[in-house]
């Protein structure tokens, strides 16, 4: 599974940025702004909040480049800074606004207005209506390729927590999509 963060970066560029070279820092921003914004937006589902996360990620990462040891790919390090920053932003927002839990969602049934695209389904819409924590877990697992154990650790929860969030989130998305699209989007193979 290839993460969109997986971009090779010249070691010299990182060294120059770590020494404070502004144009090298800007180059790193230009290289990684899309994956960072995409991850932030998928977590936050709000352009303003996502842009705030993008700023925080690059300010943190670029001001602490001296802590990057270089024994692992730079993109992996930056991605971890992005994930931690986005999770922290989600926690803060959750406390400010309150977030619906997966149980709330299952009790209230799914999305009443999952829309159809020209291809018959709208996966983005179904995903965006999941509770924030479930969205984050699903994105980290399905798209970024983190293991359940890694996700549990990052979120200070158990491995089972991550597994159940993914399974319940998938089930909720599938039932919503089936309900609206009128066909079985993802038939179970067993």
């Amino acid at each position, binding site marked *: 599974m290839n993460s969109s963060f997986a971009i090779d970066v010249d070691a010299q560029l990182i060294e120059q940025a770590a020494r404070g070279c502004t144009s090298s820092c800007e180059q790193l921003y230009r290289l990684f702004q899309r994956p960072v914004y995409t991850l932030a937006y998928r977590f936050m589902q709000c352009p303003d909040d996502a842009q705030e996360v993008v700023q925080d990620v*690059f300010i943190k990462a670029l001001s602490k480049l001296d802590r990057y040891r270089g024994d692992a790919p730079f993109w992996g390090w930056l991605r971890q800074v992005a994930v931690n920053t986005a999770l922290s932003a989600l926690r803060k927002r959750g406390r400010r606004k309150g977030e619906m839990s997966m149980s709330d969602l299952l009790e209230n049934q799914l999305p009443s207005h999952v829309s159809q695209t020209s291809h018959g389904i709208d996966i983005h819409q179904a995903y965006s209506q999941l509770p924030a924590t479930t969205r984050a877990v699903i994105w980290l697992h399905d798209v970024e390729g983190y293991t359940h154990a890694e996700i549990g650790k990052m979120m200070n929860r158990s491995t089972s927590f991550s597994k159940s969030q993914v399974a319940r989130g998938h089930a909720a998305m599938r039932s919503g999509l089936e309900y609206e699209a009128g066909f079985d989007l993802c038939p179970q193979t067993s």
Partner: protein
Amino acid sequence: MSTNIMNNQDPSIAQALRDLPQLDCPQDQWQAIAAGLEKRKRRTVPASWVRSLSAVASLLLAVFISSVMPPQPNDTVEIQQLMAASQYYEQRVQLAPRVSRADRAMAAAEIEDLIASVDSQLVMASGRTQQRLLWQQRVALMSHLVSVTDPGAGFEQPRIL
């Protein structure tokens, strides 16, 4: 039931999510980031509240470690205990009522930034001893976060495995 739910992961949904396009930031953020970096460079002396917070965190750490953590020669065991304590505080924070006072909300946000910073360092920590020290910092910060988000609950020692 839980076993069935655990196994109910859908590869086609995962693939559909992976196929979603990457997104472009609606606005170029570089100027704001460059300004933020410049501000950090200029900030040679931390603000007084940051120093106070660090002092409180250090004090809490010392009190916490000396009172509830028995001496452990094995870093791995101690890390597991600290992770359990951290998880316990995370749950306390999640159960806490929403913070309504602006000063507390601001303090909580700043503590969360410090926790995020520790988390970033944890990713890069190479040795168990370094990890243990970072987990100790995290637990101290989490306990402080609990006291800010839920001051009425009083201090409660974490359950250690």
